[in-house]
């Protein structure tokens, strides 16, 4: 039994890693193309991120003179590895029929673990930034830490609200497969519906901060601190960060889907046509479409339509505005349980 699990974990992890890297880059390409079209440009071809990675892999990897060598070189590896590990725990549409608990290691970790894993890539970047020994990277690392502290709280509020709602049903409420199995929209009244919408809004605002995109990309602000954390990175190390960014974005979008849109399309289609063996494929394609829509509204559109904020404004937006929004959503969910307003 243990042997089977070990083999499955090893080969499954490699499979998931390749899968995550591939779709991370594909979504990066789609994101760039859509932003270009929004700006009335043609934009790069969708395969451009792959070409970028190949180019970076071929370039010289420079170690700055006053960098802390081992930390500087380890940071990108840790960042990429932890981003891929995230994918092992998050259930994905279609794949939940392949694996027992929704994801490869679905039964071995819960949403609290995912919350912690989400922090590790950022921490690795902070470590890499401080180890670079450049004033720009140092400023970037400080900013990344502050951003991290600011978006964690509203994110935690959103997750607690959902888990609390589930706790009325009982069971291991922190388990991701349970959350995915019981979509929040199914068990709420009118107040709860509004509350859930508000929570979704808060999560959509947290997403660009989590994946470091405009307006919350203060840590990498190109025009201000010359890509901050990544100022000194080049060649293979930069390629690893680039890949990690793609994977993390994909994982974050999957998490949003698990929390709010865990529906599969196959039950709907089954009524009209017999899907048979294609069920997994259809569900998986539907999942990819959902990821695309989440990224379109929470990353692509937001990053194209706003100016970058200052670090103090990032903190006040997350700590005051978004937290208040999320808490209001939580309160609405609680009221929903207390006073049954019903559906009129």
């Amino acid at each position: 039994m243990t042997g089977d699990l070990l083999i499955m974990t090893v080969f499954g992890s490699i499979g998931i890693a390749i899968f995550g890297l591939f779709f991370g880059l594909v979504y990066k390409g789609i994101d760039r193309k859509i932003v270009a079209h929004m700006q009335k440009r043609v934009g790069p071809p969708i395969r451009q991120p792959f070409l970028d990675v190949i180019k970076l892999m071929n370039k010289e990897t420079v170690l700055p003179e006053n960098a802390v060598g081992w930390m500087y070189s380890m940071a990108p590896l840790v960042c990429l590895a932890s981003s891929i590990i995230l994918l092992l725990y998050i259930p994905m549409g279609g794949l939940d029929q392949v694996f027992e608990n929704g994801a490869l290691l679905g039964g071995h970790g819960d949403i609290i673990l995912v919350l912690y894993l989400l922090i590790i890539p950022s921490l690795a970047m902070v470590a890499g930034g401080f180890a670079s020994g450049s004033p720009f990277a140092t400023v970037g690392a400080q900013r990344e830490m502050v951003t991290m502290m600011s978006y964690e709280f509203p994110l935690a509020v959103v997750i607690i609200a959902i888990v609390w709602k589930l706790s009325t049903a009982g069971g291991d409420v922190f388990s991701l497969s349970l959350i995915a199995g019981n979509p929040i929209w199914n068990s709420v009244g009118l107040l709860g519906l509004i509350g859930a919408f508000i929570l979704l809004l808060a999560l959509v605002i947290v997403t660009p901060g989590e994946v470091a995109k405009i307006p919350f990309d203060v840590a990498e602000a190109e025009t201000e601190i010359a890509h901050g954390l990544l100022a000194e990175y080049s060649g293979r190390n930069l390629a690893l960060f680039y890949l990690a960014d793609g994977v993390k974005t994909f994982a974050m979008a999957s998490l949003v889907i698990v929390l709010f849109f865990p529906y599969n399309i196959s039950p709907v289609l089954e009524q009209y046509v017999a899907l048979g063996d294609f069920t997994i494929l259809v569900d998986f394609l539907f999942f990819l479409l959902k990821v695309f829509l989440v990224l379109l509204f929470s990353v692509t559109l937001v990053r194209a339509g706003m100016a970058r904020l200052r670090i103090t404004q990032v903190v006040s937006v997350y700590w005051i505005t978004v937290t208040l929004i999320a808490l209001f959503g939580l309160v609405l969910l609680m009221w929903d349980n207390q006073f049954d307003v019903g559906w009129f």
Partner: protein
Amino acid sequence: MLPMLGQLLKQMFTKPFTNLFPAKYAPKNVGKYLQDVQAGKATLISPVPVADPETFRGKIVYDREKCTGCKMCIKVCPSKAIEFKEEEKKIRIYIGRCIFCSQCNDACPVDALHMSEEFLLADTNKVADYLVVE
């Protein structure tokens, strides 16, 4: 509050504004690409047409026969792009140095110099054949 978002959603479904000269995605080697176009192997997306051929200032056209060798153009050329050939009493123009001010056109007493519509004049070799007008 965020007026750009609406504008972006509107623009998303319109045609790109960019003029895609010479191809949709930049070719690896523009020179080779243009050769391919001439050989009929590739298609060229045409550049924006010249607004007014009469006023446009492109590559200089030199009428050798008319030239009397008065050196007037050399006197007014701000970038010293024109060289005098002593033995023939004619001039040689290095387009690589030319700033297309067309001052020599104005100064020429016999109207031997003109500006054409040609503008694809970028090259790594600044004394390439087509960049030296004699």
